[in-house]
């Protein structure tokens, strides 16, 4: 096992990895940018090195600088977390060249899975289902008509260079096809500077469901169940759960087998995730991509399976064999993760960097707090707004939801606005509760339903505010009195006037 590990990340995931290392008896080295001196990951690690200015391009993305620290601190391995250098094959190779273990898969796996085209080719060879569509690009209008007959309606036109939900268009019937062909092409060149587009089947009521896999360097590989990640806002996951409300054991095994095939196509040898798009109607599933790292949402799988993915990933990187066999993997109960962000849900999710003036984290049964912040911490403007994850376990989905609601009601972050109230409202939403949703839920259904949501405690809010105003006014008038009494030569009238005007600002 390793003696010392460097964590090339910040925030909650760096804290998560430090905790795993501590429990394994491994010393930890944190790296931090100049604005992150006060960050929690620096405080909990055994060692800490400053690696440069705030912008990540000058700090957390500086591969050479991180390797330099790793050599200086004499670490055995580097854990990249997620984001930053985690899916950078060159960085993984640089580690190897410097005799440092990269805690993640082999660089070839990262490289192949990091590219849409190569990954689709690789998994197709293993007979992993892909969304039916073209492998080449559309040449012209005729080509477009020809393929539309093969694929059928509704269909999707997609920019080859697109991503993150941009450069896509759904076509319902032949009527608008050619206009849409031209419009998508022109959009594509505007957005991605590349007018290549292709055609794919439209997946009805699409859900995003992913399978967690775990491999070692001895050729062992298991899958540890699925995660439902369809609750997204602008193509960003915000709430995840395990298991999925629409996946039964039979489907789980089929998806698991497909995920293992996909992973085997690149000799996968670490923790990773195979993402699928699933039709909410037909329950057909299609390969989307593979993430060659620990995911933000890994804790929900840990909660239901009892497997510590982060520790297993470290053990496997150290050359140990997996300690779990496929037949030992059992899901118990239901887990939900709410991503708590420094964003204002009542103001179009505007980022809210700033100082956390007060913090109360929920407790009690079935609650897991994965936080990267603390009371008094100043959330910096330079990095993503995720400040913590609330992970909840319950005996079944209903119990998990009611517990999540209870936990959110205990959660208090003062000083900055967060997405806690947003999550609380989702947990009360009928569609969410019934499990009947797809990836468009938040941006369409929820928004509408949420606007109608009742706010029964207006009276309490008014009374609270009035009492606070009254107390302030009383305190001010007392301050005037006492100052006057003790103030000696000062003219009380003048003073009173001054203080009043202050309190009226």
């Amino acid at each position, binding site marked *: 096992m390793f003696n010392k590990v460097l964590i090339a990340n910040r925030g909650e995931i760096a804290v998560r990895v430090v905790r795993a290392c501590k429990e394994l008896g491994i010393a930890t080295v944190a790296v931090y940018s100049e604005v992150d001196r006060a960050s929690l990951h620096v405080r909990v690690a055994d060692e800490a090195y400053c690696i440069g200015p705030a912008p990540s391009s000058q700090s957390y993305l500086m591969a050479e600088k991180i390797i330099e620290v790793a050599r200086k601190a004499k670490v055995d391995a580097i854990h990249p977390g997620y984001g930053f250098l985690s899916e950078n094959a060159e960085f993984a190779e640089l580690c190897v060249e410097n005799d440092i273990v990269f805690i993640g898969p082999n660089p070839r796996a990262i490289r192949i899975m990091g590219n849409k085209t190569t990954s689709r080719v690789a998994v197709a060879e293993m007979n992993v289902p892909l969304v039916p569509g073209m492998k080449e690009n559309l040449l012209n209008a005729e080509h477009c008509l020809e393929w539309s007959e093969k694929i059928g309606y509704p269909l999707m036109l997609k920019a080859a260079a697109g991503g993150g939900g941009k450069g896509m268009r759904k076509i319902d019937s032949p009527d608008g096809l050619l206009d849409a062909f031209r419009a998508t092409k022109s959009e594509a060149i505007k957005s991605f500077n590349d007018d290549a587009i292709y055609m794919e089947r439209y997946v009805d009521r699409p859900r995003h469901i992913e399978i967690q896999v775990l491999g070692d360097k001895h050729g062992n590989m298991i899958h540890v169940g699925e995660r439902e990640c369809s609750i997204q806002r602008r193509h960003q996951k915000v709430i995840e759960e395990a298991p999925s409300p629409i996946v039964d054991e039979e489907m789980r095994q089929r998806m698991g087998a497909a995920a293992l095939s996909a992973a085997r196509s690149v000799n996968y040898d670490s923790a990773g995730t195979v993402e699928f798009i699933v039709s909410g109607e037909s329950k057909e599933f299609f390969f989307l991509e593979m993430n060659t790292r620990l995911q933000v949402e890994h804790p929900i799988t840990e909660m239901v399976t009892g497997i510590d993915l982060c520790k297993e990933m470290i053990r496997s990187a150290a050359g140990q064999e997996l300690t779990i066999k496929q037949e030992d993997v059992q899901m118990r109960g239901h887990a939900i993760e709410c991503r708590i962000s420094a964003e204002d849900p009542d103001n179009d999710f505007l*980022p809210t960097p700033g100082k956390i003036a*007060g913090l109360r984290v929920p407790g009690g049964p079935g609650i897991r707090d994965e936080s990267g912040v603390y009371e008094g911490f100043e959330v910096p403007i330079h*990095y993503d707004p995720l400040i913590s994850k609330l992970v909840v376990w319950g005996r079944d989905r209903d119990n998990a939801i009611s517990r999540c609601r209870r936990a959110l009601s205990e959660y208090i972050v003062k000083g900055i606005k967060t997405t*806690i109230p947003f999550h609380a409202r989702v947990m009360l939403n009928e569609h969410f509760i019934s499990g009947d949703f797809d990836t468009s839920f938040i941006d369409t259904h929820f928004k509408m339903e949420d606007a109608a949501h009742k706010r029964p405690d207006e*009276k309490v*809010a008014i009374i*609270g505010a009035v009492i606070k*105003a*009254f107390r302030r006014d009383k305190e001010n008038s007392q301050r005037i009195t006492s100052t006057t009494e003790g103030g000696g030569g000062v003219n009380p009238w003048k003073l009173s006037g001054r203080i009043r005007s202050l309190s009226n600002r």
Partner: protein
Amino acid sequence: MAYIATIKDEDIRVEIEESEPGLYRVWINGADCKVDFFEARENLYSLIFDHQSYEVDIDEVENGSYSVMVKGDHFDVLVVDEKKKKLAEKLGAGAGGRQEIKSPMAGNIWKLLKNQGDFVKEGEVLIILEAMKMENEIRSPIDGLVTSVSAVEGAAVSAGALLCLIDPTEE
């Protein structure tokens, strides 16, 4: 003592007196209730009234303007001493006039889309602010003329910093 609480443009008259330290009698909407008000920690209160227990998060954002959170719901409440309010109304509200565009958060000025002397429409984007890896558009609240721009492209700004001024125009 009487206050006018304004919530969602509705004015509500509230009378209040302190019966014992921390205990208040409040008259609102004709009803009379006794409230036990306890500051559990700074700006976080435990209220008990009619034996109902509430945790209420109350921040005074500006003088008299309160941001209140009860059971996950957020309320903006403006509280003004009734006498002062009447006085202010007598003096007249003061014209709407010049708009100060302030930064809604700390961040970096990514792009200045309008310059001094430009005419803008209500809802038009003035400035793009970058924070936490996201671009945030700052829009004009009115039709008007940009009379001064203090924001500088690439510079960091804190929350509340003045970015530019817009004077209303009539087309």
